[in-house]
């Protein structure tokens, strides 16, 4: 089965100029804050993890034409439907079909909101020692990835330098597939603008870094 992400936008031409926005301008329609809160509240139930929700969003076929909170809403419905937490037709009817309904590991009650937000979801874990060290030259793995990944296309096959070693973190690729956390060392890898974009004028005096898990990296000589 092929996995197609619509969200890997780094370096893509043709998207036009950036339109700034005032600081207080948080929402642009009455439903947007509810969509945000629904997504956060369902995320807190443990029915899926953040990497699964990113995978659900980036594989929406109409990703490019949806606004960001539309993407969140569509992906939320997809995640719910996949798990039988929502049945086809319920949203259209605006009512739940007769129970019993599947139960959730937990739900987010108003009294717990502050605690849950303050705790967050740290991803640092005990795990293997790093194979690479500060200053090491590395090449990022190339080729298509048949599942959710956090290795952006523009960095694949490119050579960079390790500029930070962060210790083991939950590995997004595995986590998104329901394969457990599989913690592995995380690094910051910096690339010269020239390595990424050649002699383009915009790439002059530019360094771009990504945060990359060890399985993304090969030693470069």
């Amino acid at each position, binding site marked *: 089965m092929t996995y197609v992400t619509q969200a890997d936008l780094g370096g893509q031409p043709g998207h036009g100029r950036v339109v700034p*926005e005032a600081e207080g301008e948080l929402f642009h329609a009455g439903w947007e804050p*509810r969509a*945000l809160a*629904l997504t956060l*509240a369902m995320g807190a139930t443990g029915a899926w993890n953040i990497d699964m929700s*990113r995978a659900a969003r980036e594989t929406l076929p109409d990703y490019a034409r949806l606004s960001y909170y539309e993407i969140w809403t569509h992906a939320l419905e997809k995640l719910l439907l996949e798990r039988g937490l929502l049945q086809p037709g319920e949203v259209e009817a605006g009512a739940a079909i007769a129970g019993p309904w599947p139960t959730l590991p937990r739900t987010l009650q108003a009294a717990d909101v502050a605690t849950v937000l303050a705790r967050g979801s740290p991803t640092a874990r005990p795990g293997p020692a790093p194979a690479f060290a500060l200053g090491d030259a590395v090449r990022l793995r190339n080729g298509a990835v048949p599942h959710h990944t956090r290795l*952006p296309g523009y960095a694949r096959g490119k050579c960079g330098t390790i500029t930070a070693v962060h210790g083991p973190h939950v590995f997004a690729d595995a986590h998104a597939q329901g394969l457990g956390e599989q913690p592995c060392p995380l690094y910051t890898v910096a690339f010269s603008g020239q390595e990424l974009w050649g002699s383009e004028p915009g790439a002059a005096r530019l360094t771009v870094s990504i945060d990359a898990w060890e399985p993304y990296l090969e030693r470069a000589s």
Partner: protein
Amino acid sequence: MTGLVRFSMAGMAQEHTHDGRHDHEHGHEHDHEHSEIGPMDLRVRALETVLAAKGYIDPAALDLLIDTYQTRIGPRNGARVVARSWCDPAFRRWLLADATAAIASLGYSGRQGEQMHAVENTPTRHNMVVCTLCSCYPWPVLGLPPTWYKSAPYRSRAVRDPRGVLADFGVVLPAETEIRVWDSTAELRYLVIPQRPAGSEQLNEEQLAALVTRDSMIGTGLARSPGAAA
């Protein structure tokens, strides 16, 4: 215009300029979106009704989540972090060495800021933060990301033509300035410490915080000059 009318009929109208909002979301015209405002309102309401009926969500928790990000967690938090780093050299060193702990000492931590990294602008180096893959953003210090941060123009161009992006924000840096772009591809979250503006030597921490804009902490802007219009 249909969308705006339906939207208002749904009784959920908020203040917004229809055309401006649309441009903000996409940077170009998408007429089909106008007719989606009404349906999205109904769809999200229906979804909430169904999930509440099943006991999966507590509507009061939703209200609290929204209130938190509308009134308590936003870029003024980050501005206080930056102002402290400008005033207190020991705090600045701590922030650059262990941003998570230094920021938590001011009361800001948690969701989407579990592991923080502060990057400091200097006269020769300018930092900019992006998430090319989605919308990763340091919520405890900056709140919810602006629309442009989540949009294709910013996510595509920040790593390839950051000077062009800065120009969209009206910012021109000296040609010799090195630009460092941080693509937030994992769960580390980045906060840019802008340069302290000239002429701000006499200001106290609170006055300094007022000069620190959200965009300056993402790296698409600079801190305001004292006396410049807020």
